[in-house]
């Protein structure tokens, strides 16, 4: 383990102390992994990195491998109880072995990566030619009918044409539940809303799905056509304000007042 991991001091709800101790206690099942907030461990680690001015996750892979493995262990523990036998197999020693295997594997490829980076650096100065082929080759020479030999299988043509003859299967829609919304339903919904006065389109389609929204808009057009409502919208995507036009009593009174 790297120096930083050894230095990592944690102050969590269930545990206070160095990270490697936590690791040991978890692997010995003396601390319940389910109660450890791994996100807090990550934050503590980031704090250490930041304090040291080494906030570079690219070089932090060892810690990340450990944390990822702990997360995986934890998620296994969180499986429903029916899966009991799954982690009965998982003795504390095995957990440590698995962590170790993870660390060795990551370490392997990290060193291989160093090797590749060195190789690339060593090849740094070599440049390959990237010129177009000479002009006399530009024209592609295809075989002519005289010299051509059979290279294609005629069965390929039969297969292709046979495939084209195949009628695609009709798409089965039985498994889809089609949500049916009728204009009549939405009309009566709108009318009942408008009985209470003006409303907005948002009120009319509260929590509705897209089909309902579309059908409500159709119904609104219908109301407009019938002269039952008018609507205004200040701009694209702005709220739609719907006003009833039905000659309800107060409206008539108002109109009468204006007229007088």
């Amino acid at each position: 383990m790297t120096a930083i991991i050894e230095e990592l001091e944690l102050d969590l709800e269930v545990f206070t102390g160095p990270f490697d101790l936590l690791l040991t206690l978890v692997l010995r099942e003396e601390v319940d992994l389910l109660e450890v907030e791994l996100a807090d461990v990550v934050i503590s680690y980031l704090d250490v990195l930041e304090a040291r001015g080494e906030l570079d996750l690219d070089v932090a892979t060892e810690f990340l491998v450990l944390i990822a493995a702990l997360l995986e262990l934890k998620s296994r523990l969180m499986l429903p109880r029916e899966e009991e036998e799954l982690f009965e197999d998982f003795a504390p020693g095995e957990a440590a072995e698995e962590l170790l295997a993870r660390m060795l594997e990551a370490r392997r490829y990290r060193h291989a990566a160093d090797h590749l980076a060195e190789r690339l650096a060593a090849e740094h100065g070599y440049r390959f030619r990237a010129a177009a082929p000479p002009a006399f080759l530009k024209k592609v020479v295809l075989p002519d009918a005289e010299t051509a030999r059979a290279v294609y299988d005629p069965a390929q043509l039969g297969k292709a044409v046979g495939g084209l003859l195949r009628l695609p299967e009709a798409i089965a829609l039985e498994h889809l539940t089609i949500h049916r919304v009728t204009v009549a339903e939405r009309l009566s919904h709108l009318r009942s809303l408008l009985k209470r006065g003006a409303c907005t389109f948002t009120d009319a389609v509260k929590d509705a799905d897209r089909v309902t929204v579309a059908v409500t808009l159709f119904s609104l057009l219908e109301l407009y056509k019938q002269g039952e409502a008018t609507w205004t919208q200040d701009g694209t995507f702005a709220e739609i304000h719907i006003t009833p036009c039905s000659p309800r009593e107060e409206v008539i009174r108002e109109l009468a007042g204006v007229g007088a």
Partner: protein
Amino acid sequence: MSAELTRRLEALLFVAPEPVTGAELLEALECEPGELDLALAELRGAYAPGLRGIEVKEVAGGLTFATAPDAEDSVRRLLAKPRTPPLTPAQAETLSIVAYLQPVSRPEITRIRGVSADSASSTLLERGLIEEAGRSQFGAVLYRTTPLFLKLFGLASLQDLPEVTAWDPSPEETADLRDRLLKAGEARAGGPVGADPAG
């Protein structure tokens, strides 16, 4: 040839995709015109015609390497050997439609495939597997296969094309091949299918 400047000059001429002018060489090599002249003379000497497989050539106001003329045959064998690349699925479909229905128009091919056949038929035309065969009554160019097509498929004549029935998934159908292909194509494209006008 071992002077360091000459070696770098050689590297530049090798790697440059276009002829390099004297000014560009002076800048890249960071040397004096006199030094460049000497290096160039040395390089020309090392690559004098007949000595090597590459020659120094002066073209388009610049210097470049080119293959020696007597290597041309080998170069052609290496880079320009006649190739018959495998057919893509789109090309095979287009070619089979032309082979079985010829003469056939591009719009018909598109209808049968359910997707455009423009790129595939252009390639087939370019490779000489199909050719134009007049125009349909509606003015669309018609295609047919070429003698090269027969050669490449090892067919003595169009009669030797595999029987469609061998590949036919719906032998009960009795309609003409063209009609059946069109019907299947329209079904694929989501167009009207006689069987299910509502779908």
